[in-house]
């Protein structure tokens, strides 16, 4: 029951985010370059973003059926109000002592003013040092996550 609720919540956060296609894109049946194509979406087409998978977004144009396009060919729309974003609401659930107000002029903790007035906190710095990982720990962690490293040159 709880799991189902969480899954539904997770799905609803992703579903229906509005966006725009920024360059003509092939609409693929699956999130792979060699998947079959069901047509083309032209630049400036308004779409709803249904989900994301790696370099792909599953989108639904206002007219026509859904499919997968390259993520960099899509730009999400800025929410007209902060509260529009479901993810934002989730953030507020976690936020302790939040007034819940959607738009604020600054959020406590890391505003410009607070950075300016900050006094060094050596105790927290020490705590941060204590949480450090080490090379063996990190390698074990990578193995557990099935992460294998590879040589790749920096982009020019």
């Amino acid at each position, binding site marked *: 029951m709880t799991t189902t609720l969480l899954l539904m919540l997770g799905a609803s956060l992703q579903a229906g985010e509005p966006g725009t296609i920024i360059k003509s894109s092939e609409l693929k049946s699956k999130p792979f370059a060699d998947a079959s194509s069901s047509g083309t979406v032209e630049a400036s087409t308004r779409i709803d973003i249904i989900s*994301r998978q790696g*370099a792909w977004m599953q989108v639904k144009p206002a007219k026509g059926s859904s499919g997968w396009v390259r993520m*960099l060919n899509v730009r999400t729309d800025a929410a007209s109000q902060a509260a529009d974003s479901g993810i934002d609401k989730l953030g507020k659930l976690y936020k302790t002592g939040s007034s819940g107000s959607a738009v604020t002029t*600054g959020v406590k903790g890391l505003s410009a003013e607070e950075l300016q007035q900050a006094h060094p906190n050596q105790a927290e710095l020490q705590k941060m040092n204590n949480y*450090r990982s080490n090379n063996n720990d990190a390698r074990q962690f990578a193995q557990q996550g099935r992460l294998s490293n590879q040589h790749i040159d920096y982009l020019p």
Partner: protein
Amino acid sequence: MRLILPLVLSVLLGACAGGQRFSLNHIDLNQAMAIGQNVVKASSDLSDSEEIDLGSGIAANLLGAAPLTQNAEMQRYVNRVGQWLALQTERPELPWRFGVLDSANVNAFATPGGYIFVTRGLLLRLNNESELAGVLAHEIAHVLQRHHVSAIRKSAGAEALAGVANMAAAQRGDWRSQQLGKLFSAGTELYITGLSKDDELAADRAGVVIAARAGYHPYGLISVLQTLNRINPQDGAVALMFKTHPTPASRMDALDQAMGNRMARYETGVIDTPRFAKLKK
């Protein structure tokens, strides 16, 4: 810093023997630096240990603005992702430290020497481990390319950076803490004004590669930028981050251009792990 201490002391002692009088408590900074530069190479490049000292001072200030979240499991997790990423870089030996700041602001920071911060507000908006890797790798790149050190040098001057670091090591008590405090405050200002656009775009390009080297899907950072693009710029939670960075859309444009098809073969990389979902519960 410690290595330079004997040199600075010998300059001071030598100067005293030469008939000049020094009062360590009322030392004139400019004068001290001018003398120091005669012997101590006015190094425009900080040593690793100087860089770490500078970075830890600024990190302490950031932690003064927002403490760490009280979630040891989360802190350790972020350190493991970060350390694994750092191992794929040209500076694996730095004492990399990663922390989640207890703030609803959406932001991430790096300070010189390998201190990396991500806010709870940003972490909660991430969908998977490759997105976290993308954010941390971007911050790691700022450290690798010494963006903050260069920016402080540009605003405060090379002498202030090298000189204050050198001279401070030779001092005791209030004078030392005052001068260092000033340098650290100047350093902290950078997080309000921001780095240059070029620095941010360079960190994006390097971040994508570092994440992919570590075995993650290269689109983690891009996916985060799509999420950030969804947030209303008027939302107070993103005010500082939006003020100090190019727009998410322009960062994606630049990445698109830089990447072309170069990263396509690494799209088999890991997107998520069960441990990420467990942590966010």
